[in-house]
């Protein structure tokens, strides 16, 4: 038996997990997404990264970005290192990718603000 706090939504349910791997039985969750999170946590925990990327524009020295989909938790710092290599030199729009398929993880690094486009 293992206890896990769900981080999918602000409710933060405390879930109980019984069994191993994909056959794990989840209780204490209030929704389906909680159960999915629990299974993923047991098999391949994933997280979102939100950070910034350097730009060439002095009025907006950094631009907020995030991964377009969750990436494996143990790749967070590797992805950060990739993001920190890049400089945005065009006035891109919100949602536009800055790095495509970062480290082959299937996720893009996308701009989360249109501040450069204003």
């Amino acid at each position: 038996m293992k206890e896990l706090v769900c981080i999918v939504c602000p409710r933060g349910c405390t879930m109980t997990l019984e069994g191993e791997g994909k056959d794990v039985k989840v209780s204490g969750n209030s929704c389906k997404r909680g159960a999915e999170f629990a299974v993923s946590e047991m098999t391949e925990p994933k997280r979102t990264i939100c950070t910034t990327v350097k730009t060439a524009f002095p009025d907006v020295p950094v631009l907020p970005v995030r991964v377009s989909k969750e990436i494996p938790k143990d790749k967070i710092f590797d992805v950060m290192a990739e993001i920190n290599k890049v400089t945005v030199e065009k006035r891109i729009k919100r949602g536009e990718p800055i790095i495509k398929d970062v480290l082959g993880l299937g996720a893009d690094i996308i701009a989360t603000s249109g501040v450069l486009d204003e």
Partner: protein
Amino acid sequence: MKKNYDVIVIGGGPAGLAAAIKAHDSGKAVLLVERENRLGGILKQCIHDGFGLVRFKEKLSGPEYAERFIDEFYEKKIDYSVLTFVTRIEKKENGFAVTLVSRDGVTTVGANSLVFATGCRERTAKQVAIHGTRPAGVFTAGTAQHFTNLLGELPTKKCVILGSGDIGLIMARRLTLEGAEVVGVYEAKPTPSGLTRNIHQCLHDYNIPLYLSHTVTRVFGADRLTAVEISEVDDKMNPIAGTEQIVECDALILSVGLIPENELAEGLGVKIDPRTKGPAVNGQLMTSIDGVFSCGNALHVNDLVDYVSESGETAGENAAAYEKKERREIDLTASGEFLYVVPQKLDLNRDNSRTTVYFRSREILDKCVFKIKKDGQEVFKKKYPFLRPPEMEKLVIDFDSFKLDESSELKLEIEVNAE
């Protein structure tokens, strides 16, 4: 900018944007005033995700959430003025005269009603009685966030965070991602102040320790901060002598609470509820001054932006519909288990059939029943498996169905450990 508007909204953050859009949708002439150079308020620097789950069923970052409203706001061609500061508001025969300062000079604009969406500010080191020297390197979490996320500057390489409020937790993760070391998060209370999920995804994920019932009692360093003194605290949150330990670090980051900003509203004579530190309002979110509405974190400090927008919409809609009418107000009295309840009053001359009630419990309570009693008789109840102070609860209640009149006594209670 026109000389007169139906509604002037002060503050261009999520509450103000929602209020302005809603008031505009009611067909009124609206002006939104923002003191910074861009709309979006504090969300501009809240680049983490988790916004909009309630409203959009999506996990958005702060800028994405704000820009959805900003896009709509621009599309609707609502009048606005950024880099514009309200210096004075005067009550006039018909409405208000709002004096604005901007790069264009000083102007006065008239309004029939006002929406205060002025947000909140952070409590500072001196407000939590931190003593010692006055070095560089003492930041509120929001200030550290501004440096990191807007200016791209690293405010610390190795820090201690005091307070487990959400911004502190978010900054612990953020600074770790940017290569800084977070020695620990220290919380004077015996329970965390921030959301449980943030304890997990911001601290546990990054092996950042959380020390409950601990506080920072002193800072050291003549120029830049060099260390802090940490003490354990007793159940009254007073430091226990002999438990002091020195932790070396270059910054102390404070996440020790937010205070609604209502100095402008208070200047007009708006009465403040000492529990929320925001204006006491009725179900329409109208304050003690006719035609003055309040929403968002200026009204009470929210933990979710979704509710900030929601109260903005309520205030905007009612400000648009505002016309002077006699008030017939009764109090919503909350028992001691509540930290606060909003609204604090109901105006029986207005529609109270879909009134949103926001509340927080004072402590962590299990197996609770939220009850409304009219003249001692229970007229409403709702069960909660638990209530936690960091997590605000929201209910929509049809008060009109309770057949209230001026003599009605409305009391809100929480029954604990109910079966």
